[in-house]
């Protein structure tokens, strides 16, 4: 066996391995403003670090991706109820702590603006620009009666299930559940 050739092939395998693993996979489960913000800060930061980023939105995080100006068509009574009760998009989600009937969240948003911290809407737009991939859990959408035509315009946003997440997670060096 030619040792130089073998070394060359091993080196190539290693390079390929390196490239495929430089990825961050995130399950975004929470529909809280604070946790969503943290998710997007980490996601955009990871792109800056040269990583590929995949976010999976499931359960309470899915309604946070709705567009407040759009309406889903063909909903049954439960879908309509869920639609009414859940926050309609990034500007409607609230803090996990100290919401205080809206006062706390309002004050936090005011402070963020004053201190020049990006809003959740801005962070989502930035993530889209940078190429953060977003998958939305098909089961959550179905359970809560949500439709893709009521979601925000986000480049490349797709429906997916658990297998897609696991495939991405298995090929990622960093995995988070938020």
């Amino acid at each position, binding site marked *: 066996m030619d040792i130089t050739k073998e070394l060359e092939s091993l080196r190539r395998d290693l390079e390929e391995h390196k490239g495929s693993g430089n990825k961050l996979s995130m399950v975004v489960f929470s529909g809280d403003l604070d946790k969503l913000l943290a998710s997007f800060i980490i996601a955009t*930061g990871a792109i*800056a670090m040269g990583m590929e980023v995949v976010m999976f939105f499931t359960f309470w995080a899915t309604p946070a991706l709705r567009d407040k100006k759009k309406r889903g068509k063909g909903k049954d009574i439960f879908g309509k109820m869920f639609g009414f009760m859940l926050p309609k998009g990034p500007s409607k989600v609230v803090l996990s702590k100290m919401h205080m009937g809206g006062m706390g969240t309002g004050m936090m948003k005011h402070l963020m603006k004053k201190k020049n911290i990006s809003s959740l809407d801005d962070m989502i737009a930035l993530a889209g620009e940078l190429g953060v991939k977003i998958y939305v859990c098909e089961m959550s959408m179905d359970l809560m009666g949500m439709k893709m035509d009521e979601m925000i315009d986000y480049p490349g946003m797709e429906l997916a299930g658990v297998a897609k997440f696991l495939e991405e997670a298995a090929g990622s060096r960093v995995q988070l559940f938020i």
Partner: protein
Amino acid sequence: MSEEIKVDATMDLKGLKCPLPIVRVSKKVKDEMQVGQVLVAETTDPGAHADFPAWAKTSGNEIVKVEKGDVSKFYIKKLK
């Protein structure tokens, strides 16, 4: 004796908060800078003192000089 560093571009990141300084710098370095060129990033974000070196190490670039102050300056050399 400190040798003079040739600066090719400067970025004003004053007032920007995490993660924007790193996001903007990485984009600029990737899209607009040539290998060997030096970018000076001016920032008021205290987190930058941990973030810029971490970013440089991970992305394979080099911080050649740091001037600390109310506005800190990071001299970033593109290596690849």
